[in-house]
């Protein structure tokens, strides 16, 4: 067994993607960006000293509260399978889950897993927040303030960035940060049109991964966790569905894509002071829900079927869809140093 006491270079800024299903931290270490990811989920199991001892010994992140042990982060999924339970989420549709007591505490613990325990030493961190869904501005404001307060208490100089804008910063350097960034996560699909790094509009729709999982689960009478596993491991858009779950997944995905495209069209129609774009702009897809093979083609087909006031040069996948938001948040944090 090796123990290291080496000095490590301390990153000066961090990017943090606080998503409904995952929390991702991006830190620059010399020549590389390091990403640390944890599931934004937890599971509770009955308290026993033996279980607690095993968890401590195995260094499994957990909290002990009254008669329960809460296992959180990546390990929660393993324990959920072990105890035949569903994992629960501290966040719902992009914001802190009002139905889960102590959701902020759990998010804090998971953030500490990806960013490291200890004092933030005033390091600048840009953290993602969703764009407000229609009529839900106050909830997002409260969510933003809660996260800012939490990160400040951890010793960070925290600044919020809209998730869609973070995708633009993470993926659209080549077009001078002009284009449409879309992040389809667990709770929401976030969209941002930016021109020369300045956001023109941002919005979100509440149809994303969880919507698909829940819909298919209800339709097929299966647990949502199992649907998510099937979706992530074997679903694709090639038109030949091997079973009814895949068929249902395709239907719900179609619904999500249509809602996203329609909302994009509405937003363009309602925006004022639209900049004059002198050339076609790119559109980048990111987030865990865009991962099934064929998603890009299916989305582009739907997009081409509507008329937008701007020409789309290309629809492309993010270089690494799971970490685009965190990367963009890091770029934003570094640019403000």
């Amino acid at each position, binding site marked *: 067994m*090796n123990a290291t*006491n080496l000095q490590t270079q301390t990153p000066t800024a961090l990017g943090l993607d606080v998503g409904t299903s995952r929390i991702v931290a991006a830190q620059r270490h010399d020549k590389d960006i390091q990403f640390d990811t944890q599931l934004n989920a937890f599971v509770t199991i009955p308290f026993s000293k033996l279980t607690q001892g095993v968890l401590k010994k195995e260094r499994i992140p957990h909290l002990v509260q009254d008669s329960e042990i809460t296992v959180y982060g990546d390990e929660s999924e393993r324990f959920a399978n072990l105890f035949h339970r569903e994992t629960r989420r501290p966040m719902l549709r992009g914001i802190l889950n009002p139905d889960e007591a102590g959701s902020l505490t759990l998010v804090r613990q998971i953030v500490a897993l990806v960013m490291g325990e200890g004092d933030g030493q005033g390091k600048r961190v840009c953290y993602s927040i969703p764009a407000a869904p229609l009529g839900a501005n106050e909830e997002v404001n409260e969510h933003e303030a809660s996260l800012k307060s939490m990160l400040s208490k951890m010793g960070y100089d925290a600044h919020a960035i809209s998730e869609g804008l973070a995708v633009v910063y993470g993926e659209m350097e080549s077009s001078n940060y002009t284009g449409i960034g879309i992040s389809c996560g667990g709770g929401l699909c976030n969209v941002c049109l930016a021109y020369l790094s*300045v956001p023109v509009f941002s919005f979100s729709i509440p149809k994303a991964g969880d919507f698909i999982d829940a819909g298919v689960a209800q339709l097929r009478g299966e647990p949502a966790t199992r649907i998510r596993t099937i979706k992530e491991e074997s679903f694709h858009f090639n038109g030949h569905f091997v079973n009814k779950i895949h068929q249902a997944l395709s239907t719900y995905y179609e619904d999500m894509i249509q809602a996203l495209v329609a909302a994009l069209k509405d937003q363009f129609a309602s925006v004022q002071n639209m900049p004059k774009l002198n050339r076609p702009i790119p559109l980048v897809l990111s987030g865990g829900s865009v991962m099934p093979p064929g998603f890009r083609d299916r989305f582009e087909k739907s997009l081409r079927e509507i008329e937008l006031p701007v020409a789309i040069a290309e629809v492309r996948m993010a270089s690494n869809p799971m970490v685009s938001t965190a990367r963009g948040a890091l770029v934003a944090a570094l640019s403000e140093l």
Partner: protein
Amino acid sequence: MRLAILIRNALVRALEWRARHFSDPVDRLQFLRRNIDAPGKAASWSAFGAASRSIAGRSAHAFIIATVLALVSAWCWTLSRHGKASSEIHGRLPGSARAVTRRAGRHGPPGTGKVWVVQTTPQFDLYSNGLRVEEQYATSTAPRRYVAFVRNGPISRVPSRASPVASAVEGEWRSAPAGIVYHTTESHWAPFEKEQNQSLRRAGEGLLEYVQRRHSYHFVIDRFGRVFRIVREGDYANHAGNSIWADQVWIYINLNQSFFGVAFEARSQPARNESTVNAAQIYAGRILTDMLRARYGIAASNCVAHAQVSVNPANFGVGYHLDWAANLPFAQLGLPDNYKLPLASVNLFGFEPPAAMLAAGLPSVKQGLLASQAELRADAGASGQPLERYRAKLQERYRDAIRALRGKGAYQEYN
């Protein structure tokens, strides 16, 4: 009004044009945000638009002056940024494949072409030379950080005056990898036959899970020639333990931090005389080596076998680990026969080879041992000291160097 719009469009196009001169994404974003925000400290496009229209409404002339000033300011700011060392500008956020490729293009060692990332997915990374690195077992430890000692200082020879170690510790802190150590996993080994498919796959999966838990290497090449990332490239891996290597300029002590660990799923002494590695593994090793050398500017002389670098400080013996003590196919990996290189542990720190190594056939580490022993004898003669006393002094320097590294927090303890 029309004039103002024309001027505003010209300003925006000028900003776009200037922004493209920034290769680093952070610099580019900084430049754009400073200049776009300038008219009204706008946080959104509508605010920016309103600010510029307001300016235009007040006076087109004033706007022209503002535009010219903004352009001059942008130009000066750009020049001042470019005035800094280009390495700093390129290195602001070099996690992107493009940044790394450009750097490799400038500083890549002779013999390695450009290699760049073609596609990155959660499952694999694909490189332009055909290398595909599987990501399923990727894990991380902590960022690489180590001290490299200057060889052409007091450490390269025992100086006549006492206490050379004070100078020896005057190396430099680094985070860039300096070389590659090749390993064999010495894991469960089934015959490479069609009938053994299940055993081969099971053994491979078990091995990958094991090395992932222990952070044993940066890469593992399984018996089907697949390359698996284990520890991320920017982090250290626990692959070399107590070890020493030196090139013409630098000395590296304990290579977990300074060298990549690349392991072939293989055994040093396979049963029934089967070949240690197969053609698929060698080809994968070749393109992996090419990628690492191209991206990190690694010298060919720093691509070596574990047996060449492994030492046992307890008895000052060379070759504590003996994987690839012989038959590492350097030529097929695109490298010169590095078995011929003298072992730094012997001629710089007085370590002694075991008899088994000297009895080995060729090609093997024996070639380097003989070369380093010859250098050691010559150095002892030049210093006018008997060989054994000279060797004892070198060993004392090693102990002092380790103490100095511990003092600097740059030493891993091995139990």
